[in-house]
């Protein structure tokens, strides 16, 4: 049985990992509530933005310019996707719209494999200035980057919840995700609201991608499919509650790392997000059917 001081360290690193999952998980739920689309390309968009930033830094561009490009790229690609495929698939089942974003994921993933083919030996990486420096907890150094990731998750949770509920634009977004046609008849500028939702969420994906590329690894497959673990947190929140998603992400990260010192379980700890999500979903559905309706309440 590992000692408390050991477990303490894994608790700290688990919180950092949870911050990573929370950022993408909350982003996914926010997108879903704003546009009605489960944006599975979240990871791929962020990853491609991070690679663009990497390329710019290699070409001796200033760091801040590269980060802005990464974040804007996320916004622009998502906006383009939303403008073309949002209306085209508007009346369809959320499942179909989510599978369509898988198409975008494959396109972006293929582009990354093509433009940044695997290199022998020279690993690509992004480092942010916030990597140097931080504070010490339980004998471990926590970098500012990890704090930003966790903090961004908190801000996002509180901020977008409030935004969607209390602002006019947010309410319009929720109405549109519920029923696009009726919202249009109410005089809401549907196209513009939709564009704002897509762009905003794309910017979020770009920002998350930059942080994840720094915290995890700048590698196409790893970053693109990290979204599946974040999806687990979103599923525990039933794609509705941002707060539950955030808490679930933290719990997943902490449980994952706390399992590390237990020899029998350590190699299975990567299952944590999937097992927790499956249990949560099945528990919630034990008495009633769960389905997504085309008209989803906000």
């Amino acid at each position: 049985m590992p000692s408390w001081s050991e477990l303490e360290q894994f608790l700290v690193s688990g919180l950092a990992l949870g911050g990573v999952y929370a950022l993408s998980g909350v982003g996914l739920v926010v997108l879903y509530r704003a546009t009605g689309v489960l944006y599975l390309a979240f990871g791929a968009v962020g990853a491609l933005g991070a690679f663009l930033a990497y390329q710019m830094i290699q070409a001796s561009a200033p760091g801040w310019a590269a980060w802005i490009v990464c974040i804007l790229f996320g916004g622009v690609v998502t906006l383009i996707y939303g403008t073309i495929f949002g209306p085209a698939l508007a009346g369809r089942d959320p499942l179909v719209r989510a599978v369509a974003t898988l198409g975008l994921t494959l396109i972006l993933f293929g582009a990354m494999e093509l433009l940044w083919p695997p290199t022998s030996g020279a690993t690509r990486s992004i480092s942010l200035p916030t990597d140097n420096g931080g504070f010490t907890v339980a004998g471990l150094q926590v970098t500012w980057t990890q704090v930003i990731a966790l903090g961004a998750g908190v801000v996002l949770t509180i901020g977008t919840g409030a935004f969607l509920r209390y602002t006019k634009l947010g309410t319009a977004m929720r109405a549109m995700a519920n029923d696009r046609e009726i919202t249009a008849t109410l005089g809401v500028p549907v196209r513009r609201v939709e564009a704002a939702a897509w762009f905003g969420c794309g910017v979020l994906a770009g920002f998350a991608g930059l942080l994840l590329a720094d915290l995890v690894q700048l590698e196409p497959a790893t970053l693109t499919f990290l979204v599946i673990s974040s999806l687990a947190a979103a599923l525990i929140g039933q794609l509705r509650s941002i707060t539950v998603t955030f808490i679930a992400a933290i719990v997943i990260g902490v449980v994952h790392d706390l399992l590390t010192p237990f020899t029998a379980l350590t190699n299975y700890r990567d299952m944590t997000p999937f097992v927790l999500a499956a249990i949560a979903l099945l528990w919630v559905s034990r008495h009633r059917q769960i389905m997504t309706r085309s008209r989803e309440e906000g």
Partner: protein
Amino acid sequence: MLLATLAALSLGVLAACSSSSSSSSSSSPSASSSSSASASSSSSATTTSTSACGTKPGVAATGTPIPLGGIVTDQTGTSFADIANMAGAYFACVNANGGINGHPIKYYIQKEQTNPSQIASLASQLVQTDHVVGIIGNTSIIECSVDHSYWEKQGFSIIDSGIAPECYSTSNSAAVNMGPRYSSDGAVQYALTQHPSKIIFDQANVPGTSYIAAGPNAIAAAAHVPITDYAETPPVSDANSVAIKLVDAAGKDGAVVLNFTPPDALSILLAAQKLNIEGNVKLWACSTPCNTDFLAKQLGSKWNNKIFVNAELTPPDQTNTPTMNLYKAILTQYGSAVTGGIGSFSQMGFTEAELMVKALESVQGDYTVASVNAAIKALKDVNTGMLCQQWTYGSYSSHLPNNMDYTTTANNGQMTLAPSGGGCTLISANDPQVAAYRAQAGTAPLDPTST
């Protein structure tokens, strides 16, 4: 006028660099290729011109081509294409300087994505369609396992960079490197010279982990030092928890030995550094994949003389022999496809090509599968200029021709020879496989250019 001045200046700078003993010549290919062409060729003229690779300098080979083949893994996250590409660069050089008795070499490089069906298909493609007479440059996570019976049936004695157990334990494959098991042996051996209280050995959970760990376990047991084995499923996405686990397990007098591909090894080491726990163990050691200047640069000076890496091949930065300079010159002139630049991968490709050319040059008469592979098997005590020992193929049931290593350490952004005990050291015969090989083949003499 301006160009000439630039050329003269760069020539002067390069001359100054190459004369110092711990040369700081850049390891990245972009630096060497961005200097003007005239400067690089004139500087290599003062050391070696690439024409030394062939028998007739400057004469392009025009006879019937000799077809050779190679299969390398090249997929997202893992690519060994540099090895085959460097071998191809060497062959291109030979073709431009007389070929093999006037015959150019035609080298077919096949890339695979660890799909066994695809690998078998590519092997039959090379033999049935491309009619290759020799196989060289294979570097793959699983190719040796999948194809070794096929190569034996077809009569090919392949020269490769081994990873899977069958690259070392079968009769028809001989590697220029040591592979994960023996390289980990070397890393553990060096760690033991620093008298740690225990050893923590961690590797990627690819097939064959027990095979790989058996070597280090045997060596540690013979030294009566406790050793614990771990494995992580690649790719390592949560390096923080791995780093914490290893440091906690090793304790302040323990040694952590890693066996991972460069990206995963780097992320674990960087995680330890960012968490500020890398100093909490006695030392870190790593198998060959860590032996790149790139890794040293990413790690920074905190790791000077803290991380020790097993180097299967002679460190290029500190060696000024004709062969090493030829390697660098060929890399510059013909190696545009080699993305990693100077480093173990391209060195392996160079060495394999060197050996293949030597075998081909000894063939009398037609170049057929039988004649070429008989010549390969006959290679004995070859001075490659890249290894500690002379290299032998021979007719043995298993092959481990490279079983003597260097140890390097991080030194301000470069990998240099470890100050004490970093020179050529035999891999311990406490590893039963090593003992079995030496029982058949004996211990090869040293390569005169080794340190």
